[in-house]
């Protein structure tokens, strides 16, 4: 990844609070990051960490409470829906649930046609028909499916139609909001391959939201780890998986299923309990209530993201201090390292 490429999307201090009064739900609480042209940025976190809200904020399906969203330098966080309309052909979304994301009363031809019509693309009957056939072909579906209704398709096929709809307006940027979690495992692989292939062929920039660490590792160039609406760590994928800095990232990686469960290290740092309520987040570092390394000082100030290595940002000051202990030999090494840390704190 070339660090000099200008960011396609730049987010600064993004906040989204739901509800009002004394304790609004702080779904996204001061998030800043950039997505470079052509890159696939992963967004991981537990349920309720604000992943989907960030995706929806970026394409203005949800209005931000505060912060900037820059699309090629232009702040779109506060422009009206009318001003937003022409920009919508440049950013699209693929949804989680392919059963709810297609209107059951519309034929596939109408679903894709609506996308084209909205932005005045492929005018004229023949060109329109050709473009719809082309889109279906692009996602690996037969053009004759255009006359069918969504209920005639399987989940995987529906998700392909959802991808085709997003691609119909030729966007440069796509938010993939957990596009796999509603699909069978066997179908997931097909859709992952499709996305990976489309990314290459069309040079797409993508924000890939998921809680599946393996898929993120396969698809993404960089990864953001989110917890309770705040960024814990940002790093290039390889580095994040081999040298995770933040205790939360380490816990996430340790909790990820392994092909052979007997090979798992004994002392995995598994997290206990649930994510705290976003209406009443812990003071200071939001992760401290579940962090194996928490100290009283963690509750005092919100730890800022600091660059611990080129392109690698971490929000835990405790780990930066002893980063010399990090091993360089893959996931296992990181886990061993973490084990020594947890043992250290428990003794």
């Amino acid at each position, binding site marked *: 990844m070339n660090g000099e490429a200008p960011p396609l999307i730049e987010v600064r201090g993004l906040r989204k609070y739901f509800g009002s009064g004394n304790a609004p739900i702080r779904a996204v609480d001061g998030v800043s990051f950039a997505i470079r042209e052509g890159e696939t940025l992963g967004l991981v976190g537990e349920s309720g960490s604000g992943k989907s809200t960030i995706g929806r904020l970026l394409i203005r*399906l949800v209005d931000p409470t505060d912060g900037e969203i820059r699309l090629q330098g232009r702040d779109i966080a506060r422009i009206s829906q009318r001003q937003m309309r022409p920009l919508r052909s440049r950013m699209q979304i693929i*949804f989680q649930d392919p059963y709810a994301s297609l209107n*059951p009363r519309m034929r596939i031809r109408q679903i894709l046609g609506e996308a084209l019509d909205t932005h005045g693309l492929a005018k004229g009957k023949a060109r329109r028909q050709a473009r719809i056939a082309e889109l279906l072909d692009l996602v690996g579906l037969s053009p004759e499916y255009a006359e069918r209704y969504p209920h005639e398709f399987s989940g995987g096929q529906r998700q392909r139609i959802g991808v085709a709809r997003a691609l119909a307006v030729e966007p440069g940027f796509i938010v993939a909001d957990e596009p796999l979690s509603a699909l069978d495992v066997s179908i997931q692989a097909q859709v992952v391959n499709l996305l990976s292939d489309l990314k290459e062929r069309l040079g797409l920039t993508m924000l890939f939201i998921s809680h599946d660490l393996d898929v993120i590792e396969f698809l993404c160039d960089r990864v953001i780890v989110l917890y309770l609406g705040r960024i814990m760590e940002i790093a290039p994928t390889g580095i994040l998986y081999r040298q995770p800095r933040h205790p939360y990232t380490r816990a996430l990686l340790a909790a990820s299923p392994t092909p052979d469960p007997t090979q798992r290290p004994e002392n995995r740092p598994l997290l206990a309990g649930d994510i705290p309520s976003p209406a009443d987040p812990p003071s200071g570092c939001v992760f401290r209530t579940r962090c194996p390394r928490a100290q009283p000082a963690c509750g005092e100030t919100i730890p800022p993201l600091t660059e611990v290595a080129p392109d690698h940002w971490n929000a835990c000051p405790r780990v930066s201090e002893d980063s010399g202990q990090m091993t360089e030999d893959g996931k296992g090494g990181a886990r061993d390292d973490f084990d020594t840390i947890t043992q250290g704190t428990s003794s």
Partner: protein
Amino acid sequence: MEQLTYVLKRLFARRIVLIAAVTLLLIVALSIFFPFISSVDPNGISVMERLKAPSAEHWAGTDELGRDLTMRIVWGGRYSIMIGIATALFSVIAGTALGLLAGFFRRLDAPVMRVIDAMMSFPDILLGISLVSILGASLWNVVLALSVVYTPRVARVVRASTLVIRELLFVDAARALGVSTARILYAHILPNLLSPVLVQFTFIFAYAILAEAGLSFLGVGVPPEIPTWGTMIASSLQYADMAFWTIVFPGIAIILTALSLQIVGDGVRDMLDPKLRKSA
């Protein structure tokens, strides 16, 4: 076409729904076509024949002016059914529009629904009586009054469904594409309201026939010279003790029509609601 046969098959899976639908079709067909075929004048007065009991000549007997009751029931059916259809149509249109706006635009929700709630707090027949009293008794005023009475029912159902549909992902997808609000309303939300609205239509159809009969019976409905089933019962009230048929046969016509409509409505609702559907 395939879809239509599939839908009909599912709808008529219960025998009773099929019977009700056939009955309904017969009643409607008779009311529309029979007056053209028959030469008997429904308004033909014959003093000699007044209040004759049912016989081979007059199947349902005759009324106080010697008019053939069979003919008058068939003839009156045209008006009763027309009032039912017109009322159902108007209240569905008005109710859908109001419910759609209240359900989709949050700011309109409270004002629109409070008016609807206020209207629903009146008993149906009382609201109908007062409206007809204000408007004056005529066929169309009865339709208008009953439409006002039933519009809130539709509005509530449509609002509830709209609240659900507007949160579905395909509406978000349309928003993300930049589809206009007007198009989201008519292309994405309206078609998905078809099922609940269809069910409301059949029920209001039935209620309107009953309510018209009630209003006419109370003397605030259709003027007596128009032979609806309601006016027939109303005018035969004073002869009921000597000629029961004058009141029984129009009554049977009302019951048969309203019951068939209710059963068909139930059938449609059951077919469209996966939770109530019995696994075949």
